[in-house]
């Protein structure tokens, strides 16, 4: 049957199982929007294309499926860029479809023409400019395959207006994709797995560094079986949260710049590190000169270009983590490491001591309080989407999480403004689960226009604002490393409650712990979206994220909260 390019787009999205797309129409993509109502695919009208890309990304991270964003040419396409880069750095599978000027106008600086395939070349896994209607269906098919397979990532399809209008005999692509130069993951080398097993079986102080690869390969159960059999404690990267239950006795918690001191200490003292689906980002290693100096290293990753990139390893294993762990498990001897685990527990005790939640309260609200209270109220079962800044680190520290694909945050790019739109995508991925956004007053104001999308779509998203009147994380660096000169970090804010109420969203303000608890309970009892402005202590020790590895320092050289004189337990 003959179909237009526009119809082929929806036909193919349908075939790829797409139920929802996020976007904003405009001149060069209107033809594609035109037939949308004939298809069973919901379009979410966002308020900014950056948010469309973040929403697609949030959808992808929570559902494990490909998220889709649509934008017009020119400014619509360039607005996607931050969202695409965010997805690229966190290996999130999204497909972006952009309108483009007619093929015969390309290169002429026509109205709203921009070379978006050129612009996004270094931030996409792959991209396409479609110039032949007969290649459109196959290109979309291929784009989804590339986005989701191997190490996932964003793919962009630029679609000139005349291709959307043209029609052709539509034949859905059948069978396998033939891409001679594309190699998703091959089976791992048995010899390498065998060597890893030998290292594991002789290690005295092993530790697993679990990253997002655990979630992407679906290796949660395999990781757990492995850790339990070999009695290896598991440290998580920020994006690895959810790959291993944090309530598990072998769970250490988060590593890195704002990881627990005892976790970093364990990594530094280990004699074997098992890096599973993580990539030794500078935020988790500290200076490489003194990183895990005594450890032998095993690194499993689906991307060959990550092996030996940052840290030289003794056993690099290229493969899908879940398959590798399945191969590894029978080769690993049951073990116990009582001394090592006891040593870690001793260090853990000290961290526990310094934990702000274990201090007597002085009436001032700190972020750890309300994040902990949300955690308690939701029994740790909510999907928590954080923005970027201090509150992001506190969320990682205090919203302890046992469930996969439930912690969403911009790790690699650290994109402020990510939280709210990503939560929109997350809620579409899991309409029946409770979704909380935890955002800072700085980042919230970067994308708060998408409150409009939340009310238009009637999404029951719960927003928690960590309102400290500062670009807090930058302020903290100024306090520690820039002579306490608070340059351009103080925020004069609007009345957030009134602002949000203007959207018809019920809003609360909390200035102490009791108000915080009440507001959380009332927000949860309210149907639909809610907003709480948590006005937290802005300055002083309680307003900083501890512990902290200063940039460029060794992983164990942490700035720590001082030891308290009294603790509540």
């Amino acid at each position: 049957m003959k179909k237009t390019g526009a119809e082929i787009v929806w036909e193919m999205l349908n075939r790829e199982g797409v139920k929802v797309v996020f976007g904003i129409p405009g001149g060069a993509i209107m033809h594609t929007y035109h037939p949308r109502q004939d298809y069973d695919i919901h379009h979410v009208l966002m308020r900014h294309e950056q948010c469309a890309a973040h929403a697609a990304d949030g959808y992808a991270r929570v559902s494990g499926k490909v998220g889709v964003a649509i934008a017009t040419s020119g400014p619509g396409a360039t607005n996607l860029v931050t969202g695409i880069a965010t997805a690229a750095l966190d290996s999130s599978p999204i497909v972006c479809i952009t309108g483009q000027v007619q093929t015969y106008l390309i290169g002429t600086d026509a109205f709203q023409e921009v070379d978006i395939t050129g612009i996004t070349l270094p931030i996409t896994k792959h991209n396409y400019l479609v110039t032949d209607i007969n290649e459109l269906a196959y290109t979309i098919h291929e784009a989804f395959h590339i986005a989701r397979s191997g190490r996932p990532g964003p793919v962009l399809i630029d679609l000139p207006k005349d291709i959307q209008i043209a029609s052709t005999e539509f034949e859905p692509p059948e069978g396998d994709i033939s891409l001679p130069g594309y190699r998703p993951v091959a089976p791992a080398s048995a010899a390498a797995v065998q060597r890893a097993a030998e290292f594991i079986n002789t290690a005295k102080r092993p530790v697993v560094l679990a990253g997002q690869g655990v979630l992407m390969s679906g290796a949660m159960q395999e990781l757990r079986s492995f850790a339990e059999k070999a009695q290896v404690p598991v440290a998580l990267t920020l994006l690895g949260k959810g790959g291993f239950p944090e309530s598990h006795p072998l769970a250490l918690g988060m590593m890195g710049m704002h990881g627990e001191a005892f976790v970093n200490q364990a990594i530094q003292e280990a004699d074997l590190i098992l890096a599973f689906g993580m990539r030794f980002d500078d935020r988790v290693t500290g200076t490489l000169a003194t990183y895990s100096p005594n450890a032998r290293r095993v690194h499993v990753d689906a991307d060959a270009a990550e092996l030996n990139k940052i840290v030289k390893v003794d056993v690099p294993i290229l493969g899908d983590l879940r398959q590798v762990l399945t191969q590894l498990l029978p080769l690993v001897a049951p073990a116990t490491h009582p001394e090592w685990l006891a040593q870690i527990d001793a260090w853990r005790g000290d961290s526990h001591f310094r934990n702000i939640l274990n201090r007597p309260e002085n009436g001032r609200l700190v972020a750890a309080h309300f994040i902990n209270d949300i955690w308690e109220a939701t029994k740790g079962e909510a999907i928590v989407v954080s923005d970027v800044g201090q509150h992001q680190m506190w969320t990682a520290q205090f919203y302890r999480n046992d469930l996969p694909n439930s912690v969403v945050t911009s790790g690699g790019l650290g994109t402020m403004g990510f939280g709210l739109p990503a939560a929109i995508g997350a809620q579409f991925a899991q309409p029946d689960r409770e979704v909380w956004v935890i955002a800072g007053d700085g980042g919230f104001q970067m994308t708060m226009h998408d409150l409009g999308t939340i009310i238009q779509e009637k999404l029951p998203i719960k927003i928690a604002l960590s309102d400290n009147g500062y670009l807090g994380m930058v302020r903290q660096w100024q306090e520690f490393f820039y002579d306490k000169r608070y340059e351009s970090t103080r925020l004069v804010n609007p009345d957030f409650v009134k602002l949000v109420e203007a959207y018809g969203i019920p809003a609360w303000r909390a200035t102490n712990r009791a108000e915080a608890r009440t507001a959380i309970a009332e927000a949860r009892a309210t149907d639909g979206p809610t907003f709480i402005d948590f006005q937290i202590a802005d300055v002083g020790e309680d307003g900083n994220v501890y512990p902290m590895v200063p940039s460029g320092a060794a992983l164990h050289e942490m700035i720590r909260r001082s030891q308290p004189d009294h603790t509540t337990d």
Partner: protein
Amino acid sequence: MQSTLIALVEDKPGVLNRVASLFRRRAFNIESLAVGHTEKPGISRMTIVVDSSRTDVEMVVQNLLKLVNVIRVEDVTEVPTVMRDLALVKVRSGDGATRAEIMQLVDTFRARVVDVGLKTLMVEVTGTDDKISGLVDVLRPYGIEEMVRTGRVAMARGGVGTDRELTA
């Protein structure tokens, strides 16, 4: 130190741009890059010379392989390989005596004079980097008006081709 890579790539618009963009983005130090068609339609071949004292060659290979349009990459540094550069050099020839002198040098290097002007000669030379640099060095005193070099192309000796098993 240099390493020589051969990459077979799909002959599609933008592929050269993808490769060049990758080198820039990852801060890989590349000495030369030569691209051309192969005997198989739809497949182009790149010869890439990497400054291996400053760039991890394995990272170049693995990142090239991540590009969807790159079909195969081979490091031929350690295998017996024929490597060739081509250069055209326009050199000032002056009077008859100088001209004869230059032609003799050109002969010694097994190069060829491909154009004779009133005041210049154009010399074509193929060979390894060293050979070309050698000729250029001896021509320099006469005055080089213009020069162009292609960058290295390479092919492993004997055996089967780098593009074995490839169907276009």
